[in-house]
């Protein structure tokens, strides 16, 4: 047993960007003082509960509510009969083609588990009891349960996802070594520990919503559009979010119901989505299926990749899970073809779940590469290095930074890959077969503008103010570090205020784009605040620096000083000398041509200013390589991950301590994906049969070994102002194939459909 070296929490040495500062808001979280959305007190609070459909498709023909209305404490029952007066909101880009009505409690059932009725009562217990008295009658229609339902068909091709260069089919046919296989991933769920829900309160036409949000400004805009309000009238409050993983970036039907009920009742309404209802109130990762064919020379040079993917979507929106997202950029290949289809089934529309697209895509290509290595009789590490992509063959652009070779070689070194015995079933420990496998991953650098405000107060404290959010990634911490470094004040003197749509606008905490965006805005604002402070100190009457003849001043350790032997003041002393209560500086990272109020509003509330990874001169991505060891019980087929080493290129790390936590979190979710997680759908009626945390298995502490993580990144100043690339999404990408490849090495059995459960191995 090792004793961890004790470190003093919050030492100022850790306060600069790149330091291992402990989590800034940590004390609030370990004392229970951090307040989450459903914990805000409200006077005269009413409680709403949802009733969800029990059929996959059909019409609601009647809802009998008299018994429920007569139950104690019941205030209101909302059904498809009630026109809530809502209008469809614009899409992510801000496009709103027509003024269509929006029915969050629809008459047409499109999936099992769709919210149909809401019961509002004085207490949640009373609302739940009354909900059991509601009788819904349906006229069922034939539904499609899942991607594998024979009725599902082939779906439709999305031409915008087709990618091709060279002549892949011909090159494949010419290749002396070929493999082809089909890989499947099931429906998967976010399972953030904090269930969804909200508290909504109206004051006249001003609406306040306490709801966990990965994007306060965007959600405020969408609520405003539903309720035909100016966006300024809607305030989303979300300083703490109990996990999101992609699920908390937009308002959902239950939110519209709660807000509408609050307006009708003239009282605040709280709606807590139950854990089972969380499985169908928003979409997780769609089930996917992809076929990959690889062609190579006999010495292992890739000649062609042909990819054909399909993912399920809902019957009312085409939301692809892009199984071709990582396929074109991991390896050097001159002939490539990829096509993707979506297959409508009766499910809630799929959503973004950690590493969207890249994750199932990497499962396909990274398993296929090891199948090719096996066919060639070549070490899978050697095969990957041999086909290392010197540039982005899809866009034709050079990489900004790509330390994937270092990730592979340093990861291999730390793992001890050289000691691998090549043949499957050739390594064992007692009755456990041992297997080693590799999986590479990637996620694009997505850039977006943000805004930030810095306030220097009379008492010398510095406030960083931003509407961005922290769901555990570390926004509070890295913004304190950024302001501390740029301003020259100790991190202990900095306060960070986040999570409110009335504060300066910010990019969504999604697609790994927030940290790079918001540190840029805070850095810019803090430098401007520093310049303003120095300017005032040199020019204002009353400042002891005014007549020193100094051209500039230095700020360090919270003191402002003239060079040489001039005066030196603390910030409070200077603020007093200047006669200022506060200095406030607001800056954004929009370009000069889009600085109008209207442009700014659009930038913070839509995705219209978001830039993809190849929109500049370079192709920019985070990269990783995972090395997994599994133990497979020969008798029972049970698989345990016994150790992992993962090496990452995420550019510069703003706080390695928090980054390592995010990486491990992604890896653990990947272990769940590989071995445990699978939405099980009833083929008769499309019901999610394991809609709870006891049956939909996420990893427990006992499932997880020590995970070694290594950073091989270098600062990438094309990717962001301070040189970081995305951290949160990439951690999961490549984990599942590393484990699947290790299971093959252990057992000689290739499992191509996740999760890898024991019945597939024995």
């Amino acid at each position, binding site marked *: *047993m090792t*004793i*961890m070296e*004790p470190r003093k*929490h919050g030492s100022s040495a850790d306060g600069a960007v790149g330091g291992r500062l402990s*989590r800034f*808001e*940590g*004390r*609030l*979280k*370990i*004392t*229970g*003082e*951090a*307040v*989450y959305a*459903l914990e805000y*007190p409200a006077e005269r609070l009413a409680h709403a509960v949802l009733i969800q459909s029990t059929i996959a498709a059909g019409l609601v023909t009647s809802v009998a509510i008299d018994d429920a209305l007569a139950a*104690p*404490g019941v205030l209101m029952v909302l059904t498809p009969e009630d026109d809530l007066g809502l209008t469809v909101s614009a899409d992510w880009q801000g496009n709103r083609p027509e003024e269509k009505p929006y029915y969050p409690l629809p008459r047409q059932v499109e999936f099992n588990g769709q919210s149909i009725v809401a019961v509002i009562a004085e*207490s*949640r*217990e*009373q609302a739940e*009891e009354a909900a059991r008295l509601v009788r819904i009658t349906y006229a069922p229609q034939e539904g499609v349960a899942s991607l594998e339902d024979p009725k599902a068909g082939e779906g439709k091709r999305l031409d915008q996802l087709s990618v091709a260069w060279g002549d892949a089919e011909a090159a494949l046919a010419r290749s002396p070594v070929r493999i082809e296989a089909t890989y499947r991933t099931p429906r998967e769920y*976010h*399972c*953030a*520990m*904090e*269930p969804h829900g909200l508290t909504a309160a109206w004051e006249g036409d001003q609406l306040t919503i306490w709801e966990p949000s990965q994007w306060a400004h965007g959600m405020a805009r969408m609520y405003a559009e539903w309720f035909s309000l100016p966006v300024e009238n809607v305030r989303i409050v979300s300083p*703490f979010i*109990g*996990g*999101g993983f992609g699920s908390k970036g937009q308002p959902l039907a239950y939110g519209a119901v709660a807000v509408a009920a609050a307006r009708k009742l003239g009282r605040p309404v709280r709606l*807590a989505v*139950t*854990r089972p209802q969380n499985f169908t109130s928003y979409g997780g990762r769609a089930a996917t299926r992809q076929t990959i064919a690889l062609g190579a020379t006999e010495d292992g040079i890739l000649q062609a990749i042909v990819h054909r993917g399909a993912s399920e979507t809902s019957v009312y929106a085409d939301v692809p899970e892009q199984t071709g997202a990582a396929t074109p950029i991991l390896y050097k290949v001159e002939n490539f073809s990829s096509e993707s289809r979506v297959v409508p089934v009766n499910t809630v529309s799929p959503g973004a779940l950690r590493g969207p697209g890249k994750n199932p895509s990497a499962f396909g290509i990274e398993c296929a590469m090891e199948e090719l290595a096996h066919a060639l009789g070549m070490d899978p590490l050697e095969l990957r290095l041999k086909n290392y992509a010197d540039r982005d063959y899809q866009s034709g652009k050079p990489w900004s930074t790509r330390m994937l070779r270092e990730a592979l070689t340093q990861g291999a070194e730390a793992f001890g890959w050289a000691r691998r015995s090549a043949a499957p079933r050739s390594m064992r420990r007692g009755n456990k077969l041992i297997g080693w496998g590799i999986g590479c991953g990637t996620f694009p650098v997505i850039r977006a503008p943000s805004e930030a405000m810095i306030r220097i107060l009379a008492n010398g404290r510095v406030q960083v103010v931003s509407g961005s959010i922290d769901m*555990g*990634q*570390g926004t509070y911490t890295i913004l304190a570090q950024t302001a501390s470094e740029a301003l020259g004040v100790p991190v202990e003197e900095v306060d960070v205020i986040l999570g409110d749509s009335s504060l300066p606008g910010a990019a969504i905490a999604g697609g790994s784009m927030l940290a790079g965006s918001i540190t840029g805005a805070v850095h810019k604002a803090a430098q401007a605040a520093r310049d303003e402070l120095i300017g005032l100190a040199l020019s204002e009457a009353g400042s002891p620096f005014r007549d020193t003849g100094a051209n500039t001043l230095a700020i360090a350790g919270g003191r402002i000083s003239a060079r040489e032997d001039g005066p030196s003041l603390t910030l409070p002393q200077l603020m007093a000398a200047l006669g200022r209560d506060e200095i406030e500086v607001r800056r954004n990272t929009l370009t000069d041509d889009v600085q109008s109020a209207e442009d700014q509003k659009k930038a913070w509330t839509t995705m219209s200013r978001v830039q993809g990874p190849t929109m500049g001169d370079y192709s920019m991505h985070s990269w990783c390589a995972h090395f997994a060891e599994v133990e497979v019980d020969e008798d029972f087929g049970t698989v345990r991950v016994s150790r992992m080493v993962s090496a990452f290129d995420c550019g510069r790390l703003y706080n390695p301590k*928090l980054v390592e*936590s995010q990486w*491990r*979190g992604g*890896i*653990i979710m990947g272990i769940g994906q590989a071995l445990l997680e699978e939405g099980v759908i009833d083929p008769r009626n499309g019901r999610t049969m394991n809609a*709870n*945390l*006891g049956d939909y298995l*996420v*990893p*427990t*502490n*006992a499932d*997880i070994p*020590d*995970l070694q993580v290594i950073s091989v990144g270098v600062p990438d100043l094309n990717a962001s102002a301070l040189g970081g690339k995305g951290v949160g999404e990439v951690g999961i990408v490549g984990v599942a194939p590393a484990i699947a490849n290790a299971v093959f090495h252990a057992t000689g059995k290739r499992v191509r459909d996740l999760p890898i459960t024991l019945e597939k191995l024995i």
Partner: protein
Amino acid sequence: MTRTIRLSLDINERRYEIDVEPRVTLLDALRDHAGLSGTKKGCDQGQCGACTCHIDGQRVLSCLTLAAQAEGRKITTIEGIAAANGDLHPVQLAFIEHDAFQCGYCTPGQIMSAVACIREGRTGSDEEIREYMSGNLCRCGAYNSIVAAVREAAEMADA
């Protein structure tokens, strides 16, 4: 059901008089009636551990416990484990030090389980810690750091 009962609950060595329906769980009584929202609701089905608190020093799932069952017993929640002078519990300090959480939502339950786990003497090895901390799910995936924090706090308790 509209009848309420008056309960007198001993929470964190303070007395709370609350009027609740008999069906109200200890979890809801804490969060919605006693104003102690540090105890979290993650599933309301006894599957996630976020609602873990102590009754007479033993860890329980407050979502599977009726408030009325806790009357006359000593209830301890995350708000009640720091010392009277405000000094944090060693487990709380270790959680910050090892970054044993991200979003913080499972954290009160993890800490309450960790305090009990150490008291139960189930910290003899990392494997044992993992096993006896497995009733508390953490979707952010802080498990390595939770084990490190529990190990360190247990060693401090032994010292």
